[in-house]
């Protein structure tokens, strides 16, 4: 349709990144809750939690905190998309000779940039709180790759939410269960301390395999088969989220 897909996506991404730069509070508020949780767990509950590891508790819980950061950050993606739809600028773009996919991809790339910025803020605070890792550059790269995949997967769910929402509140409400999911996983306490059915759920939901993989990468331990389970979950969520979001977009764009 258009031979300028990449250029148009770049221009539109620049636009929404400018939105974020003009309201940097969205990055800060995304990072504040995970940081508060981190302080709470490390300095209040941490002493009473036995992880069965001699490592500092902040090392144990950082992977889960990073996932919570992203899960709350994608709410802003849905929010920004919803505002574009409401404000009519979306229709202006749709009526212009540009590739329609550019409009969505711009939001997706912006979501990726914003969430990685929030993650960087949280990691910096964790380092100040005593988080240490001897992870190799390759292990860091693997962690970054997993977080990018996780962000993309949740972003497409956010796109779906933003496209189908009727109100601003509805656009971001989808993220609450996503934020809550890490609490019923191995993110904060080992799953074997939980009662039977809860432990079963915790061990078989996606967050646990992702958290365990990131934790192993940071601790320079073998990731085992867990990484493949994590990858399968991420790929599955990504593909399903993408498919549903694109279907919703087609309906919307007629």
């Amino acid at each position, binding site marked *: *349709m*258009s031979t*300028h897909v990449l*250029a*148009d996506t770049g*221009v*539109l991404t620049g*636009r929404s990144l*400018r*939105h974020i730069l*003009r*309201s940097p509070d969205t990055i800060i508020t995304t990072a504040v809750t995970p940081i508060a949780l981190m302080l709470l767990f490390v300095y209040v509950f941490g002493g009473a939690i036995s992880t069965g590891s001699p490592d500092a508790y902040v090392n144990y819980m950082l992977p889960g905190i990073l996932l919570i950061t992203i899960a709350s950050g994608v709410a802003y993606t849905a929010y920004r998309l919803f505002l574009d739809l409401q*404000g*009519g*600028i979306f*229709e*202006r*773009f*749709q*009526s*212009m*000779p*540009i590739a329609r996919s550019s409009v969505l991809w711009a939001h997706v790339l912006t979501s990726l940039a914003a969430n990685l910025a929030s993650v960087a803020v949280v990691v910096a605070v964790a380092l100040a709180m005593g988080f240490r890792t001897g992870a190799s550059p390759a292990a860091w790269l693997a962690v970054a790759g997993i977080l990018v995949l996780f962000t993309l997967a949740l972003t497409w769910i956010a796109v779906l939410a933003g496209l189908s929402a009727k109100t601003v509140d509805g656009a971001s409400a989808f993220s609450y269960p996503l934020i809550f999911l890490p609490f019923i996983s191995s993110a904060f306490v080992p799953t074997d301390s939980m009662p039977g059915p809860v432990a079963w759920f915790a061990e078989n939901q996606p967050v646990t395999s992702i958290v365990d993989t990131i934790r192993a990468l940071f601790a320079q331990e073998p990731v085992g088969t867990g990484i493949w389970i994590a990858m399968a979950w991420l790929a599955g969520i990504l593909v399903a989220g993408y498919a549903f979001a694109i279907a919703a977009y087609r309906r919307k*764009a*007629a």
Partner: protein
Amino acid sequence: MTAARALDPAIRVQGIEKSFKDLQVLRGVGFEVKAGSIFALLGSNGAGKTTLVRILSTLLRPDAGTASVNGFDVGAEPAGVRGSISLGGQFAAVDEVLTGRENLVLVARLRHVKDPGAVADSLLARFDLAEAGDRRAATYSGGMRRRLDIAMSLIGDPPVIFLDEPTTGLDPQARIEVWQTIRQLAGGGTTVLLTTQYLDEAEQLADRIAILHQGTIIQNGTLAELKQLLPPAKVEYVEKQPSLEDVFLALVGDTRKEPR
């Protein structure tokens, strides 16, 4: 008005129907708009004006009927239609977070015109927004937003412009500013299709007026033709009272440059 050469009509609409669930909004709409003219689609709220504009700008598919814009079929060649049109008006789709200038540069980049910055600056000057160019659009008055909206629609010189209720919600002075802009556009050869619920707006601006009522065009003609539908004018002596608009404009200082 500059006489358009004997070209095909810029917009051709035939038998367009559209329903939303049980509600039939358009029941077989048809008309043609000559290139370079101003065509007003007059109708009350809910008459289906916006639905028709959304169909013509490829945002919505009709249930039945055909339409072409600048020779491109809206169903079969939507990319060609989008390359020929601009959409503006009622919703004043400007990006509030960006400044006026950034809004113009954004559209200029997306339309791949040369030197987006220079295009933006010349439009800011032309639309009397140069001073406000570096302010966020959120701080603009209704009239300024609408002018910015129309300025954004002009980038890339699309031959056809749709303006959906371009003056709804504007104060009288801003309305007159927008009217002047629309006249200039058509003077430059652009085909303008505007929708309005204001009778005086259609009367002031349009070369042809179509009245959309309950989903069909019930009349379509020039102002003179429409006036002939009523019995010939009787001569009566009526004291000429100034209208409230005259009073208001006299008090605040009339910005009209070309009285009609």
